[in-house]
């Protein structure tokens, strides 16, 4: 079964090191919310009705035209997976944590390459999404849009001429579109510019969030930028807005990196070298420390200070060293301490100099 493969490895195609502008933009995601008319929204559905929704989608996915344009998406019920396997799908960013709540009503349709997927009976009946490496919001939208077109030929969507696609939560109504990019901004963080930059971004209709972290610093210096509003603008406008903001962020980040490299070269190389050393030889690694060191390592690779490790390996490690993955590799009853030991071991093995 394809899904079992998915949960057995940390690597996913969105981590590829070859995406455009990949040194700063790690990945791009497009997601649209769709609901079927004739069914209540998922939180109101009985188990039987929820099953009917899953069944309707399964049939729609078997359509020849759909398979021709979007490929084969395999439907799996969340109840077929163990709790750890479900958590792994979250850690790989393939499903949202919401899909874990009341999992007996829920399912995921996933294409083998893990780029295209549909969450079924999350907050809405369908959340069609595409996840690609680098800055590729347009191609991600292209994939989602094509699949959506084909689905709509057989499924009756809840749609209003005035309000657009109807969603369970009014914050998603209209296009139902959420576009987001994950960006790595160590330069802006280390030059103390991040707060101002992110403040500006949040003032122009975009949401910025740090991913874990202490204070205003996100662990791993990773940030997610997405649109706040789904109604009133076309999909293209929403996407172009994020693309142009992301490009500006990229320029700022590049300038900051250049400044660090030119003006504080020794300190920069020292920090990166120390982090690389710790990752290679430490015996105990907490999540927080690991994320911080990964960020330094990634920056070192981007700046050609470190040349014997590939960038996609760092992204993979970020996922591989999350709690559920560790549990799946080493068995459940682990204390936090044992987990930190296991994490260090995994990282050591992955970074072993050949």
């Amino acid at each position, binding site marked *: 079964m394809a899904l079992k493969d998915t949960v057995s490895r940390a690597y996913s195609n969105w981590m590829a090191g070859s995406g455009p502008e990949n040194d700063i933009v790690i990945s791009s995601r497009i997601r649209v919310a769709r609901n079927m008319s004739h069914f209540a929204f998922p939180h109101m559905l009985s188990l039987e009705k929820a099953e009917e929704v899953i069944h309707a989608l399964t049939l729609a996915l078997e359509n020849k035209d759909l398979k021709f344009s979007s490929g084969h998406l395999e439907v799996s019920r969340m109840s077929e997976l163990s709790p750890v396997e479900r958590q792994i799908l979250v850690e790989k*960013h393939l499903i949202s944590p919401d899909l874990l709540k009341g999992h007996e009503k829920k399912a995921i349709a996933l294409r083998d390459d893990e780029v295209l997927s549909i969450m079924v009976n999350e907050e809405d009946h369908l959340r069609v999404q595409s996840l690609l490496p680098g800055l590729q919001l347009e191609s991600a939208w292209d994939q989602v849009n094509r699949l959506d077109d084909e689905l709509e030929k057989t499924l009756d969507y809840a749609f209003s001429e005035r309000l657009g696609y109807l969603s369970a*939560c*009014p914050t998603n109504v209209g296009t139902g579109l959420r576009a987001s990019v994950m960006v790595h901004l160590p330069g802006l963080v280390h030059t103390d510019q991040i707060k101002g930059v992110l403040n500006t971004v949040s003032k122009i209709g975009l949401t910025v969030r740090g991913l874990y972290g202490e204070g*205003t610093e996100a662990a791993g210096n990773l940030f997610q930028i997405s649109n706040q509003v789904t109604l009133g603008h076309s*999909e293209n406008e929403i996407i172009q807005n994020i693309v142009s903001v992301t490009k500006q962020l990229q320029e700022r980040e590049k300038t900051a990196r250049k400044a660090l490299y030119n003006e504080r070269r020794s300190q920069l190389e020292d920090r990166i070298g120390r982090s690389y050393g710790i990752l290679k030889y430490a015996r105990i690694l907490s999540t927080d420390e690991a994320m911080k060191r990964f960020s330094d390592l990634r920056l070192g690779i981007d700046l050609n200070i470190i040349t014997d490790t590939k960038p996609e390996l760092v992204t993979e490690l970020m996922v591989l060293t999350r709690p559920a993955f560790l549990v799946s590799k080493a068995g459940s009853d682990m204390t936090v301490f044992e987990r930190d030991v296991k994490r260090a071991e995994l990282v050591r093995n992955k970074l072993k100099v050949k």
Partner: protein
Amino acid sequence: MLCEKCHQNEAAVHFTEVINGKKKEMHLCESCASELQPEGFSFMPQINFHNFLGGLMGHNVGPGSFTKTATKDLSCEVCGLSEKEFARRGLLGCGECYESFKHTLDSLVKRIHGTNEHNGKLPERSSDRVKLIKEIESLRNQLRQAVEAEEFERAAQLRDSIRDVEKRLEQEG
């Protein structure tokens, strides 16, 4: 420190999430933490708007008038969800709810999105009529912008296009 969720075990996992510069901290024991994946890292914007929405709704209707609508027991005829329940959960029950609760939802949607008009994708199956109406709306918007920018040549072209589409709309009947 005790876990904030169960208040029984020692907190072992500490999450900090920063959304638009606002910091939110959580201290949880391991078992509660494993249930609660912090939303941020999932790379999906899932800000919990629901409580926020409930608050907005309350404001919107005002406490006095809200009790009034509640005693009227306004519910969606299709799914049975009451307006009170919507205010509590922040989630609608079905597509028809948008019609059933139109009087409060219209202003709520406007407060969230700044508009009530969808300008995005239309289902391929939606009627030609709807497509034409949307096209006219979009052309009118462009016309307004052209006039503001004093691009009169473009404005004239747009005016012609609007007339054409309107004619097609009439023929559709």
